């Protein structure tokens, strides 16, 4: 009845249940963290605005980014993935979302910073609709946990108009 195998089985089962409960608790506790993110991003300069050989408009930008993401970090946070997305509407597409720049924040000590960056990925339209177009910039963050639920949110940061002619 109380053989070695039975004792081992009970012990392993108990340990697994305990571990699962701890993981669930760690993820649940994240729900009590109500973060307030301060961030700003704006276009300093439009470096290049041209038409690709394929006929799609392509834009390169210089951006000024500042943010304070420290409130996003809890003890269950492995890292926070942030990216700046351009969003605009065209006659063909009701939504165009294009990631311009992204960054991984590994810990709380690196969560407050200010930087001037060029876009990592060019803003390429599906077609040639960008003349004088108003583009909204939004900062998205994706909190990646050590275990459990992933949390995603975004905030609008600024908007800019593209010029009427190619550079």
């Amino acid at each position: 009845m109380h053989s070695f195998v039975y004792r081992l089985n009970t012990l392993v089962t108990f340990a697994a249940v305990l571990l699962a409960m701890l993981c669930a608790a760690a993820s649940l506790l994240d729900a009590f963290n109500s973060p307030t993110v301060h961030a700003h991003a704006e276009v300093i300069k439009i470096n290049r605005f041209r038409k690709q050989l394929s006929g799609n408009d392509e834009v390169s930008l210089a951006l000024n980014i500042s943010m304070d993401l420290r409130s996003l970090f809890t003890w269950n946070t492995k890292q926070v993935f942030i990216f700046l997305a351009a969003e605009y509407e065209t006659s063909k597409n009701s939504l165009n979302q294009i990631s311009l720049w992204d960054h991984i924040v590994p810990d709380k000590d690196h969560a407050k910073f200010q930087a001037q960056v060029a876009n990592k990925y060019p803003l390429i339209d599906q077609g040639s609709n960008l003349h004088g177009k108003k583009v909204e910039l939004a900062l998205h963050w994706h909190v990646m946990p050590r275990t459990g639920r992933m949390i995603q949110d975004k905030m609008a940061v600024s908007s800019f108009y593209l010029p009427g002619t190619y550079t």
Partner: protein
Amino acid sequence: MGWIGESVESIRSLQIRHLLTQIVSLGMIVTSALIIWKGLMCITGSESPVVVVLSGSMEPGFKRGDILFLHMSKDPIRAGEIVVFHVDGREIPIVHRVIKVHERQDTGEVDILTKGDNNFGDDRLLYAHGQLWLQQHHIMGRAVGFLPYVGWVTIIMTEKPIIKYLLIGALGLLVITSKE
């Protein structure tokens, strides 16, 4: 001599009953695992509710051997979400992040471009030849939950099948030989 035959008969019937009980309990284990899996498929709306990360292309967020829980809701795919998609001509699905979304005005169809956080460029090289965008039907689900290390069990079992057979054999032996 009648009592010997009776006792032999009773032992034999006992063994048969015991064997039958073992078979039924084994069947219960297998079917309940199947019920849980199919139930998860219904709840999450994804054809595979749990996936194991096989490559390091999303490091340091997801490492090889981590598992992801998928969900497939009616909500449209948006940039920043981590999606699991399959590419025509590739057997193993890929877990990467959406970096571009174009949604059609008239039909509502979406064009999606993905990239691994740890990869230098976007995924067009991984897509089928000449494919520029993913469509809704390529997407198997979006990752909503994360559990580290657990997937190593399946990675080890698929790469070293002998361990799988040993484990199944040992478990089967335990079930058959165990007494109440």
